[in-house]
């Protein structure tokens, strides 16, 4: 469990104090995939680096599994860092070392295993990330996705309990992003590893995270389970991220809807309700007509969800609304 108690960070630039993170408290449960989303300069990178103290906090307390990280001395910090893996946007692999030597580096630095044990562990890690055939290559000979896989193997070398991901997929194309995220989800599931990731793409959050915190100007403005935050965003920053992910332009949508007669509602289904034949049943029983203006059916991590915007005309509209509300469906009346 990672806990922040009133942690804050201020940089001193040219004689002026610039706050990067306002006093923040936060809790990440073990085994969770915790996403931090925000625009550049929102403070998410600072927050991530506070966890393994690549950034020193200006105040507050950080605890990992009840160990006070902020109180560790240099030696304690080194030992702690060996239990926290980290991957980076630009991979940060050593160009001068082979893939195998890059993965072996954290183990060599820790100096606890023999050469033979290190070799065995490296082989196992490369197998996990699907790069066994590339052990003798140098990073320059690999694609971006392969480099990040090496980064992941390297981060897992010391069997850490936490993995920090710093914009791990931001330099990758969509297809490679999907495969790297898939690998992260798999690692989280199989190794029970706690993952904290930062990103500026809501899609990354949607695919792998359990919890999400939205950051803006050094403050967490919204936080909760991904499905809740994603489907019912309340803060303007969150709404913008969700719209970016769904490629919805609210202004454009309003113009289109202006020409449509009747009431307009947005229904949000989650889990099993996504597949229930609700619309047809309600229309038949209450005599309303509906046309679908917009909609999508997708997954948030492993949970299916659907979101439909409907124009409803005729029949017993109030009864229909009551039926929607009674079913396991979230309804918003837009007009």
């Amino acid at each position: 469990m990672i806990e922040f108690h009133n942690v804050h960070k201020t940089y001193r630039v040219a004689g002026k104090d610039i706050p990067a993170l306002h006093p923040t408290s936060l809790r990440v449960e073990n085994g969770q995939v915790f996403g931090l989303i925000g625009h550049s300069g929102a403070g998410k990178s600072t927050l991530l680096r506070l966890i393994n103290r690549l950034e020193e906090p200006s105040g507050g307390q950080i605890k990992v599994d009840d160990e006070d990280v902020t109180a560790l001395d240099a030696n304690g910090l080194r030992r702690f860092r060996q239990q926290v893996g980290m991957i980076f946007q630009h991979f940060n692999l050593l160009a001068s070392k082979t893939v195998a030597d890059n993965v072996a580096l954290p183990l060599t630095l820790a100096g606890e295993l023999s050469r033979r044990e290190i070799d065995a562990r490296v082989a196992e890690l490369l197998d996990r990330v699907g790069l066994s055939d590339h052990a003798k290559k140098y990073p320059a000979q690999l694609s971006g996705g392969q480099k990040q896989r090496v980064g992941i193997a390297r981060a897992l070398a010391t069997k850490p309990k936490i993995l920090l991901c710093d914009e791990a997929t931001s330099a990758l194309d969509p297809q490679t992003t999907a495969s790297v995220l898939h690998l992260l989800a798999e690692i989280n599931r199989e190794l029970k590893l706690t993952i904290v990731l930062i990103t500026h793409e809501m899609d990354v959050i949607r695919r792998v995270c359990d919890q999400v915190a939205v950051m803006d100007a050094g403050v967490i403005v919204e936080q909760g389970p991904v499905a809740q935050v994603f489907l019912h965003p309340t803060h303007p920053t969150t709404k913008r991220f969700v719209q970016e992910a769904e490629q919805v332009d609210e202004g454009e949508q309003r113009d289109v809807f202006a020409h449509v007669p009747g009431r307009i509602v947005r229904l949000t289904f989650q889990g099993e309700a996504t597949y229930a034949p609700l619309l047809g049943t309600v229309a038949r029983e209450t005599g309303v007509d509906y046309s679908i203006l917009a909609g999508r059916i997708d997954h948030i991590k492993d949970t299916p969800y659907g979101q439909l915007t409907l124009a409803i005309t005729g029949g017993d509209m109030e009864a229909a609304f009551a039926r929607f509300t009674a079913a396991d469906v979230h309804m918003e009346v837009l007009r």
Partner: protein
Amino acid sequence: MDVLLHYFDNVDWADIWVATNDTLLMLGTSLFFTVLVGLPLGILLFLFSPRQLLEQKATYAALAFVVNAIRSLPFIILLIVMIPTTVFLTGTSLGVAGAIPPLVVGASTFFARLVETALREVDRGIIEATQAMGATTRQIITKALLPEAKPGIIAAITVTAIALVGYTAMAGVVGAGGLGDLAIRYGYQRFQDDVMVVTVVMLIVLVQILQTIGDKLVTHYSRK
């Protein structure tokens, strides 16, 4: 044909041979000590410099001042200024031995700056990643920074070696011998153009060989 053969009448090939040996001996010895002194000095300059691992403003400023002061002196002046130190270190200010201390002092400060630059070329992300693994500062230097900067450091050694060839020519002033000395005493002061031509050609060949070896090594160690 005769004219061509007689053009090199003044050249004593035994002298050329001795001078070449002296040059190579000065170059080899001084390059060895230059790397020995300059590499740690360059690493310290890098570590103490602003926003680096062991940032220490005062130490860096002091170190940088000394390095700059030495580098401000033209080598010919350094040779003379250092005579007492040289006598103290080697017992003589003459010959090959008398040339080594000023060569090392002059070249290692130059080399240290090149090492500092080469280390600065290493992506900061590499340092961050190594720190995140729980590396000590020593480990960051030996396991990450130096391996990553190796091509840059080899290039720095090449440039320094070639600068040293130039310095050794000036070391002729303290009676150090070598090709430069030959060129000055015979080629210039006795107007023996042929000796001048031969020494110049030898120096050019030497520099070409050094650069070629350096480039080959840089290519060999570059993985980018």
